[in-house]
């Protein structure tokens, strides 16, 4: 699993990293992963996938996600998740 050490942070980079993880690690087909595709509410990823995705986001973007911090909507598509990560990562930088 590639780290993002020193990588410039922008929404496209985050989205690409997330897509790469979903395809390489979770075995989701690339054609299912449009930026706005709904991942959780349509069943593309299930509970076990979600646990792995949360761990990936935390490990690779330096975030700690608490129970009520994030809504399903924010984790439900690549573009919303990338926005969330960008927002939180930047906020944590000050």
């Amino acid at each position, binding site marked *: *699993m*590639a*780290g*993002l*050490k*020193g*990588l*410039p*942070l*922008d*929404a496209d980079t985050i989205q690409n990293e997330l897509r790469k993880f979903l395809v390489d690690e*979770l*075995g*989701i*087909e690339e054609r299912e992963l449009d930026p706005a595709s709904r991942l*959780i*509410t*349509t*069943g593309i990823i*299930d*509970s*076990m996938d*979600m*646990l792995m995705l*949360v*761990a990936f986001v*935390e*490990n*690779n*973007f*330096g975030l*700690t*996600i*608490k*129970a*009520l*911090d*994030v*809504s*399903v*909507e924010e*984790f439900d598509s690549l573009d919303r998740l990338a*926005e*969330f990560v*960008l*927002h939180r*990562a*930047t*906020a944590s*930088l000050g």
Partner: protein
Amino acid sequence: MPPHLWAEQLQTGSVNIAVDAETKPSAPQSNTLRAWSLIALLFIVIVLLEGLTGDRSELRFQGGKPSFPLILSATGAPLEIHFKSGPREELVIAEGIGTTRLQRDPSRAKDAGYEVRSLDDGTVRTRLSFRRSPTQKTVSLRPPSGIEAMRLDSFDLRVVKSTRATIGGYEALGWLVVVCFACIPVVCLLGRSPVFSQWVFAASTLTWMLFFQPAFALALLAFLVFVHRLGLECARNHITGKGASAWNLLRLGGGMALAFLLVGKYGADAVAELFANPGGLALAMPLGISYFVIRVLDTQLRWYRGDLVDVSLREFLAYVLFPATVAAGPIATLPGFRKGWLGPVSLSEIGPPIRRILQGIAKKIVLVQIFLGGMLFGIGPVAFDPGLMIQVLWDPMGVTSGRILMLPFLMLLYSYLDFSAYSDIAIGFSRLLGVRMVENFNWPILASDLQEYWRRWHMSLSGWCQRNIFMPATLATRNQFVPAYLTMLAVGLWHAFALPWFLWALHHATGLIVLSKWRHRRGRKRELSRGRICAGVGLTLTFAAAGYSFAFIGDTATALAIYGRFWITLVTLGQI
């Protein structure tokens, strides 16, 4: 600050992150342990409550507890069943063995399943089933007319289903439909702006509630006003970085909402019995209480995350009290309700919502009440005497395999058609009132696996649970099992705080976990053949049907007997 602004700043500032990808957050073992403890605690509380309040009926003869055999005469004291529970509708199953048949006094053939059989030893077995209305406190049993006296050797009694009566019952529901109809011309003529329509929605439901349940209406209004102020304060605290303060406000608001639900939904029985309905004050369950609370909780969590700071009290009241969805949902989110506002319906658009309402009414009357009601409960114009469900409830271990297999499937179908009929009516009325409401069902009986089933069945509640229980529980515990069990327990206990619903939740959560494990082991990329998809549909339907052994039957032993025999019969058939 909106996320896109952060992105713009980053593009100019080129912020780099330096994170060690191997760093892992500490595993929240303590949260997992707490969640398991909560599940265990719920189980213990339910078992204790069932023990304390489970058997709420007793037999009496000549003022005391009967000892068998006893002699019942046509003119003397009857055998009496006394019901001690509060305002409930109950399905009662009874079996007496004696020298002749037993009969309810006065005889009510219409609402009673009744079977008389001569046994080998010369005695006569009478099986009875009847519905006890919320106001009925006793039922008497005597020998049939023409028989002076009989010896009764034994008498068994089971309350197999007990449902809390709602205030006003069907009369209140009927008036709610009238309220919806009355709102349509007002909204169509004057409701171009959502502001006016929102006042109409809130005021009409509150007026209806004040008529049927004045105390609850005032309590609910005060609660909603308070929760709205609290929520906005919570959202502002989140935005201004006062996280601890926002968390405390969420706990206060959420705690109040849950207390409201606990007292109104689960506690009113005890209150009703304690105070014996003082001054005619209705203390039965307020209609729609679960739906009010569930909408409030959803909005509170959004406020906690800093969303919806622009929601006025008017809009909040209209959302929670929207008349078309007061009684049985669907459970829209506040952003969904806002987005769904389409404005007054024009004459050219009036056809589809009216068709939807008529479709719901036809489904409810023809398929649910007449056809399935007749088959299952032996009621209505095409009733099967005494009804499949009554036959199984009389003797779950002795009834034929065909009947034990058929019952759960028919119960699932009954529940699906009944609830989707209500949803059709609510969605049709919503559109006539200017709001496109979320759908509640999407052919769950065609789901090819259990996860898909739950994405198609009661979708607004499933979505609520996914947002507000499953996701937070997953993040808090980082465990695959606990969130599934907590979510299904929330769904089950939302229906009734009873052991059969607890078992229903275990059944579904275990099924979901096993399915997820199997899918991950099988691998994602393998396409399923058409035959496997069909097999999946059959298996999913069978699994969901088996769960209905618990959903329809309040007596745990009876429910377990049906559930066990259903699976054993299926396995036996499979071996043949």
